[in-house]
């Protein structure tokens, strides 16, 4: 790749994109400037490496290192992960999905072990908990169902007891969706949309990237997409996304925010007239190259794994969400291409199809299963 094809190497890049605090210094602006300085070092270092990159392969997604980090994490995580003790199905899902994006196979033994562990997280009352012996909750249920669909074996599918409460995604994937199950849900979700256009975790709270994705995906699954004015919060300098207005860039929002764009594209397409060709057929409504540059140049941890920003520690969650690069447009070597993922379920498309085929054979429950209020 020649220098001029990278956004971060453009001669006017600094001048055009650097944060301007308008001579009004606050904590938010100080932190932003600090992050830009740190990112600048990464981009500068990258430019130097480009000068001797005669084979034009940079930037390189370090697949081997990342895979090793993920495989290790499946069986063993450090004590700093104690704080996620109530989220163990999430850890399974994040790791499994990252491995499937990298097209890394798992041994039959590992698949069976993970499936059995998730089985131990399932509750008699229905749904999955954050760990064996804990209370069931929608969040680990979502994660566990997705993880089991990625594993994709009959053993994994049979673990899911479809009898009781699941969220929209889990319900759709396992074919237990009934009209009563989500009565009133779309209306509640829409109440979570704020004056900024994004969605909050609950009515009244601040718009947030993570919840914006969940809100949009849920409305899509429930076939109640209203045209939301989801404001683009792509960071000018770094190239990655921030989670909220005036907050800092974070690799994980590559997924939460970036992943919302295919949904937005779909919604806009559905709502447009036949003759309306405003939507691009070639790219999503955000700067894909800038995002890839940010993740590949600034967010790869030397020992394997992806991080939120330069200087951050490793985190499985950050890795999972940062890895969802577009499979269509890529920069650097063609080895950087990762497998495409289903934009709503966040599982690779072939696994969704496989799960769908399995569960469609089973009838939906006869009576509506109402979820207990959390």
């Amino acid at each position: 790749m020649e220098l001029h094809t990278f956004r971060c190497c453009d001669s006017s890049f600094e001048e055009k994109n650097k944060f301007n605090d308008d001579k009004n210094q606050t904590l938010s602006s100080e932190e932003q400037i600090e992050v830009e300085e740190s990112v600048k070092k990464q981009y500068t270092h990258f430019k130097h490496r480009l000068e001797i990159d005669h084979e034009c392969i940079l930037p390189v997604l370090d697949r081997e290192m990342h895979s090793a980090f993920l495989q290790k994490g499946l069986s063993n995580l450090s004590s700093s992960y104690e704080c996620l003790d109530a989220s163990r199905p999430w850890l399974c899902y994040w790791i499994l999905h990252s491995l499937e994006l990298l097209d890394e196979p798992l041994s039959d033994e590992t698949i069976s072990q993970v499936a059995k562990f998730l089985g131990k997280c399932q509750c008699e009352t229905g749904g999955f908990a954050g760990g064996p012996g804990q209370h069931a909750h929608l969040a680990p249920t979502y994660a566990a169902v997705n993880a089991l669909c990625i594993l994709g074996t009959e053993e994994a599918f049979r673990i899911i007891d479809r009898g009781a409460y699941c969220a929209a995604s889990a319900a759709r994937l396992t074919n237990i969706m009934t009209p009563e199950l989500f009565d009133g849900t779309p209306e509640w979700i829409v109440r979570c949309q704020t004056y900024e256009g994004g969605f909050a975790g609950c009515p009244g709270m601040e718009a947030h990237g993570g919840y914006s994705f969940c809100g949009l995906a849920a409305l899509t699954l429930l076939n109640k997409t209203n045209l939301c004015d989801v404001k683009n919060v792509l960071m000018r300098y770094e190239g990655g996304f921030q989670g909220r207005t005036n907050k800092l860039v974070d690799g994980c929002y590559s997924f939460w925010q970036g992943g919302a764009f295919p949904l937005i594209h779909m919604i806009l397409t559905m709502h447009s007239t036949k003759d309306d060709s405003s939507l691009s057929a070639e790219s999503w409504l955000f700067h894909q190259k800038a995002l890839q540059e940010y993740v590949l140049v600034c967010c790869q941890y030397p020992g394997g794994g992806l991080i939120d920003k330069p200087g951050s520690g490793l985190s499985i969650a950050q890795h999972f969400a940062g890895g969802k690069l577009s499979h269509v447009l890529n920069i650097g070597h063609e080895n950087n291409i990762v497998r495409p993922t289903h934009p709503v379920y966040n599982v690779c498309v072939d696994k969704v199809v496989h799960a769908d085929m399995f569960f469609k054979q089973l009838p939906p429950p006869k009576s509506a299963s109402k979820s207990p209020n959390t």
Partner: protein
Amino acid sequence: MNKDLHKELTYITNVINKHPKNYQVWHHRRVIVERLQDPGRELDFTASILQDDAKNYHAWQHRQWVIREFDLWDNELGYVEKLLRDDLRNNSAWNQRYFVVNHTTGFTDDVIEREISVLLDRQLQNYPSVLAFCQQLYEDRYRSPYLMAYMIDTYEEMLEQESDDRAATLKKAEQLCNALADEYDQIRGEYWNYVARSLTSRYGSQTNTVEQEVS
């Protein structure tokens, strides 16, 4: 039982101080407060967490729940104003401002006047409209993407309402979109190009012949 709950509240206070971004500990605190039916420590506690991290989502969520549940609206606008003096860019504080106004006075004309005067300096009174003020700024070579985006939003509204001179309004909106995509907000170029195409597609057909004559 209550005595134990007060001890438990002290316990969870310590845990949250060590792990302020963990979901489970905040949930636990809410359950205790609900059972105690006593919000006495909550505003001070959330304020202390926000002192260290003024944008902690869990703290704000807990604070909003307490205020709504126990009707503690009275001093919240004052608290928000203090945070905005500390950091005008704190979006969580702005969101809280909306939350309080929405649930108390609502956005009446008086309130809107007050909110606008909080945001802008007195110059606005010299202009017939906010748009006129923005257009003046633009003419004075201000090129903030937020300014230009606001003007595009306003032009779009005018086009929807079929006000006069649609062709000219559409052209101004398109020029702003192009300027943003090409120069002043390149990172959102795909979006601005889409907006321009979308506006042309919706409002361009009535103005096509005029466009051709002008160019």
